[in-house]
């Protein structure tokens, strides 16, 4: 993936697994100096409020480590469920698929570079 990290969520996460994921991810961001993280949820047919919060948390952690997060591949049914649950995941970038996600990351990161004080 080059400068980006790709995380593919495939099964329903329960507490332990979620904590492990957060651990692994934050460590990986630091170790590889990644500037962008793509979370691929195209395999998930169902996302509950726990998952929603977890994604939100992971995104927050990444931001603190100076990495941008993009959530990709949400299925229509999942989007509808999240909206019904009142979870709009504000502040999290989204894209239709991994390819678009990478385009978005590059654009966002280059915007950042443009605005960095010289």
């Amino acid at each position: 993936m080059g400068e980006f990290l790709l995380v593919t969520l495939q099964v329903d996460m329960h507490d332990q697994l979620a904590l492990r994921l957060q651990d692994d991810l934050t460590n990986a961001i630091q170790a590889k100096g990644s500037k962008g993280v793509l979370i691929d949820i195209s395999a998930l047919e169902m996302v509950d409020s726990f998952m929603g919060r977890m994604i939100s948390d992971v995104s927050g952690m990444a931001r603190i480590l100076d990495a941008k997060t993009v959530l990709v591949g949400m299925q229509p049914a999942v989007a509808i469920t999240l909206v019904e649950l009142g979870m709009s995941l504000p502040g999290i970038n989204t894209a239709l698929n991994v390819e678009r996600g990478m385009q978005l990351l590059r654009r966002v990161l280059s915007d950042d570079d443009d605005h960095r004080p010289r």
Partner: protein
Amino acid sequence: MGAVNSIAAVLQKRHADIEGAWLEQLTTASASSSGRVANEELKRQAQEFFKVFEQALSSGRIDAIAGPEWAEVRAFLEDLSRRRALAGFGSEDTASFVFSLKKPLFEALRQENIADPLQLAEGIWNVTMLLDKLGLHTVTAYQRAREGVINRQQQELLELSTPVVKLWDGILALPMIGTLDSARTQIVMESLLQKIVETESQIAILDITGVPTVDTLVAQHLLKTVTALRLMGAECIISGVRPQIAQTIVHLGVDLQGVTTKANLADALALALKRIGVTFSRQ
């Protein structure tokens, strides 16, 4: 049962009289009803009803018209009810087809039982009970037919009024017509999101020119759709905002959460094209 046999017997014995009197009632009623049935057709209907009616009576059971003995009578009445509904009759017209048979039958029974008031009373009671049940059956059948029509039309309306149109590679439009309630919002969201995945579109334009009023509920539904789109990585533009709607939105304090709005579809399309990096040049 003596009473039933007496009805069946009376029918057989005085068939012509009863039929004549009944037809007379039917044709008078038909002249003043909301629908139109030719007199020849009425006669045919009456005769057919007689046939199945007499057959059912011969079974000897008049208490349970839901039973198999009365299946043909029920089927005839349901068919009649359906055809009359289509011809523009009201439900009372179809029911009175059955009820108007009472008077001729009472008259015939009276003449046959002049010497026996008890027998007469029982005969009249049985006829009343029987014809009431059959009359109610036609009304129920009529109503069920109408409900079927309404349901079908509602379904068609739902399907017709939420088409998702591809305006350009990557741009979808959803012209919404009519009031937006939760059922429609659900359908709109499902079909729109599905189309986004299929066409890999980035922008969806929701055109609300055809939405008469936007209150807080409708605004909520719109925002739900916008949020769902955003979650899937697509962008939303709302077009067709009329002046009254703009006023309502501000008065209600609805927060559009940064959704871009345009007055008409043309402007929305221009913006969408710019966003995906397409330009046109005039030759």
